[in-house]
């Protein structure tokens, strides 16, 4: 019964100009509550922020920026594999 009503609403909303995604907010909200509370209790994501909480003295950063090419007409809004802020994800070592 509920499934039939939802299916009808979904079809009607789709005809109305693509507002069917509103019906996904319920399950998404439930998932967010479950995951958010679980993390608040279990704290599996926490660790010592040694990058900020250790005494570090760094010399000015040096480097080189060279334009290598231009991209046109991509649908990607971000670079593939952005890891600028993910300092702990290791990449390959220089040979």
């Amino acid at each position, binding site marked *: 019964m509920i499934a039939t009503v939802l299916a009808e609403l979904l079809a009607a909303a789709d005809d109305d100009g693509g507002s069917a995604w509103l019906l996904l907010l319920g399950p998404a*909200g439930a998932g967010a509550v479950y995951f958010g509370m679980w993390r608040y209790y279990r704290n599996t994501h926490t660790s010592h922020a040694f990058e900020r909480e250790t005494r570090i003295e760094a010399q000015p950063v040096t480097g080189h920026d060279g334009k290598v090419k231009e991209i046109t007409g991509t649908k990607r809004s971000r670079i593939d594999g952005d890891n600028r802020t993910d300092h702990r994800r290791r990449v390959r070592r220089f040979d």
Partner: protein
Amino acid sequence: MTSLPPPGDGDQPPLVDTPIVPTTDPTAAPIIDTRNERLDDGVNRCPRCGATEIQLRPSAGMLICLFCRHEWSEARLDETIVDGDLTALSGTVVGSGATDIDTDVDAVMTMKCAGCGADVVVNTAEQMGARCHWCRHVLTVNEQVPNGAVPDAVLPFKITHDDAMARIRQFAGKRRMFADRAFLREFSPENVVGVYMPYMVVDANASADVAGVGEVQTRRYTRGSGDNKETFYDADVYDLRRHVDFTVDDLTIESSAERAHMNAAINTNNVINTILPFDTENAVKWNASYLTGFTSEKRDQDIDHVRPELEDQLLSIARSQVASSVGRYDRGVRWERERIDVHGSRWISMYLPVWLYSYYHERGGKGMVHYIAVNGRTGEVMGSVPVSHPRLLAAAAVVGGVIELLMIAILVAS
């Protein structure tokens, strides 16, 4: 190479350097002698009255004689060393308490009581002193035996048992609603235990190089119309290289294999790691009396075991340092190669104070120990509380149901 803006604020406390004792073996790492020569294994007496009933008074951070109430403290490790510049640090310098563990040396030690001559056994894997069962003198282990039990320095507890209990109660109190019911029934923060955990405290002088690709958006536009409208982007792609020289003072790394193993799927060791950092500059020279009334966990990792973790953390620090120099790449940066050169490192083994509440929780035949840990110096708390999944599912279903009904109402109305 082009000079880029400095990433940090550069406002750092002064750094220190330590006197190095050359070793007879030219291939061995230079050793910093951190032995407390005033103390021996066995009976150590109050400097004023000669009693052996000595323990830490956490609120004052001092040792106190329980017989005459005299209070004193061992010298800070930093006070015994000479100021210096970490950029001059080269090679590997090791505290005498951080040298490699000799697997032939047993954790169980037998000491002869200076009071009555009896043999007293101490298991240094868990404690660093024992009471003579005949004459009641307290015997302590103070000489640096190569079994990892006696570190270079100890940072005494400052947070009291009552304070730790209150902090744990407050932490768990905020997590009652969806907590496992058995956990709540059996919750008894008075069982919190003061543990001295083993760490390597490392100073390092390093250089890092990273290379990758960055993108700057040059144009954003849409094509099509109505439902077929799509957004497209144009961008310039740059090859990026960065180099940074830096020093790190008192990076703190677990030197117990069990604690260093952090896997949230099977243990909660990460919560103990989270309560770092400690004010390690206030660590004092070793005196086992600081451990009276507490337990301790023996170091079982040598420098070579911990070195990969040091390099990993130094690389993370380097990546963090260069991040501000690539801010203009608004489509992001993908680092693809990295390198760390550790020019010099100095290793000091240290016992750091942690109040630990542990709860064994079994679910679906799988057990896990959940810790709530309190930093014994700063009072910072972090923990893991087992969750009641039926309660959490019910709450999620209610919230999801309410949102869904609202959405249905909106759709019907429109």
